[in-house]
């Protein structure tokens, strides 16, 4: 069976969408918590949550972060190809669907703005949570400010070039 592709991304819906048709509740949702826990452990153990590692990356003085991101992309790419070609389904038996990303000016302007913040805080959104968990509690302030930034974007989204 062919996997359905090219589902247009709804601009109002979120960009990491839940494509599952059937609802999940209770313990089934806990599976995402478990994946998150493993993911958080990897983040800390590989030191990718480190402000120093991000500095190394942007100073081109270490291959480490490029190796992490590059090999993650490679494994993700092979996985998605296998899922599509073999028609692998979800555990619940649904066909796997992935929304396409639509090009917008935001990927250029917003991407650049995020890059500025990434080098300053030493964190993208994922590592923010892991930094707080691993004891750098002051990063809560950074997280709250990131939520505020998201809110301000949402408020003025229709007035910004896109």
């Amino acid at each position, binding site marked *: 069976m062919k996997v359905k592709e090219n589902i247009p991304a709804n601009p109002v819906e979120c960009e990491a969408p*839940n494509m599952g048709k059937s609802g999940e509740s209770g313990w*089934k949702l806990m599976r995402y918590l478990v994946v998150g826990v493993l*993911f958080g452990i990897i983040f800390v*153990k590989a*030191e990718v949550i480190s402000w120093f590692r991000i500095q190394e990356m942007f100073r081109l003085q270490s291959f480490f972060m490029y190796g992490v991101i590059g090999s993650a*992309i490679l494994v993700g790419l092979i996985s998605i190809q296998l899922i599509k070609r073999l028609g692998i389904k979800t555990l619940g038996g649904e066909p796997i669907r992935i929304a396409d990303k639509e090009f917008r000016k935001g990927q250029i302007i917003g991407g650049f703005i995020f890059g500025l913040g990434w080098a300053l805080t030493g964190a993208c959104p994922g590592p923010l949570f892991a930094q707080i968990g691993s004891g750098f509690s002051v990063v809560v302030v950074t997280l709250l400010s990131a939520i505020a930034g998201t809110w301000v974007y949402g408020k003025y989204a229709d007035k910004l070039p896109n």
Partner: protein
Amino acid sequence: MEQLIEWIRQPWPWYVAGPLIGLTVPALLIIGNKSFGISSSLRHACAACIPAKIPFFQYDWKKEIWNILFVTGIFLGGIIASVFLSNPDAIVLAESTQQDLIQLGITDFRNLLPADIFSWSNLFTLKGLFFFVIGGFLVGFGTRYAGGCTSGHAIMGISNLQWPSLVATIFFMLGGFVMTHLILPHIMAFVGF
């Protein structure tokens, strides 16, 4: 067993960590048709707590509760890794990076984050304003404007051969280079390093 724990306590090399991070992509898809992405959690937080009738936050965030649980897991994973699996030694940093950062005024290289910047005592200072408040704001505003972050665009998007994600990733990197090389030295001097 002890050897295993000892091995886990060491910092993990990129060729172990990267592929494991990549496996998150099929794991989330196969568990329940979820596309990997983390910055969306910040949007869900807005939609759940402070939607303020803004159209961008009017959607069924409860449907995306998995994403909130996922980032809660990342937080818990951070606790577990640092409490039970932490590396007792200082982080090993490229010599050249260390020299550059010493030039900029960083003195503490013991932890994953420099205590010179990331401590509560800096909160109500210029350091806190730039590194926490402005930095965080840029991360939240920029990722949402770009429609994703390193996970949603760089890993999930490029893995799925989405060229807009490649564009986004190029501009993430460009922003980082500009901040690190052109702006950061001025900020460091301005905030009193």
